């Protein structure tokens, strides 16, 4: 836990500051340069969960772990990728470069692969909403068909 945040919570639990003041302080340190990652939501203790602290996730993390049986390689295989959310935003904006006449072909190709997405419906104003909802995404996959494979996708 961030040291500043811990101090604020200790002050709150000691009754030195009110829940509103704690919320403002936490919001201030989150908007500052020393923002910590890994804590993107939570209630302030002592407020019965009414004061919800929500910070924006900074990174999308993809973890893949597979054993020897599933990959056929020597030793376990692991992939750990951390992608800044800002990069996702920039990447999604690239979709605006795809010419309108290519949208249909793109949609058909995606549908064939089980992704029913209509590219023309993705507007720049919807992108922020799309990325924001991605912050609540957590995918956990455990596959035990041949060997053991574990996939985790989450925001932090």
């Amino acid at each position: 836990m961030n040291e500043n945040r811990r101090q604020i919570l200790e002050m709150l639990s000691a009754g030195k500051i009110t829940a509103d003041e704690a919320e403002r302080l936490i919001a201030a340190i989150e908007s500052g340069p020393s923002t910590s990652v890994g804590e993107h939501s939570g209630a302030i203790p002592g407020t019965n969960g009414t004061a919800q602290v929500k910070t924006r996730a900074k990174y999308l993390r993809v973890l893949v772990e597979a054993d020897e049986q599933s990959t056929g390689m020597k030793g376990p295989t692991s992939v750990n990728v951390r992608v800044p959310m800002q990069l996702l935003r920039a990447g999604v904006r690239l979709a605006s470069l795809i010419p309108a006449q290519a949208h249909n072909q793109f949609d058909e190709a995606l549908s064939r692969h089980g992704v029913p997405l209509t590219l023309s419906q993705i507007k720049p104003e919807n992108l922020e909403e799309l990325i924001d909802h991605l912050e609540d995404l957590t995918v956990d996959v455990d596959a035990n068909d041949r060997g053991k494979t574990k996939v985790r996708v989450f925001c932090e």
Partner: protein
Amino acid sequence: MTPNFAVVAVETPTFHMPRLWVPLFLLWIPVVLLSPIIFLVLAAVAIATRTTIWKLIVLCWGIITALPGTDVRVTADGAHVLVRVL
């Protein structure tokens, strides 16, 4: 902020490379030197995609400035590869 360094490390059972700090800021030198060609390529892409070159530059700049913080670690077949953009 544009990426300034990339940290690259490769380790295999038979080979161990010390962490390599790649000075990405030096790439600005070839970018500046090749800027007329880059501009022409961007203009061609802008025409092909029926967008403006300014919008294209903004998109490219957005991707470049979003790169810091990217971290990729792969372990496979006894080898470890780390790439981190700072």
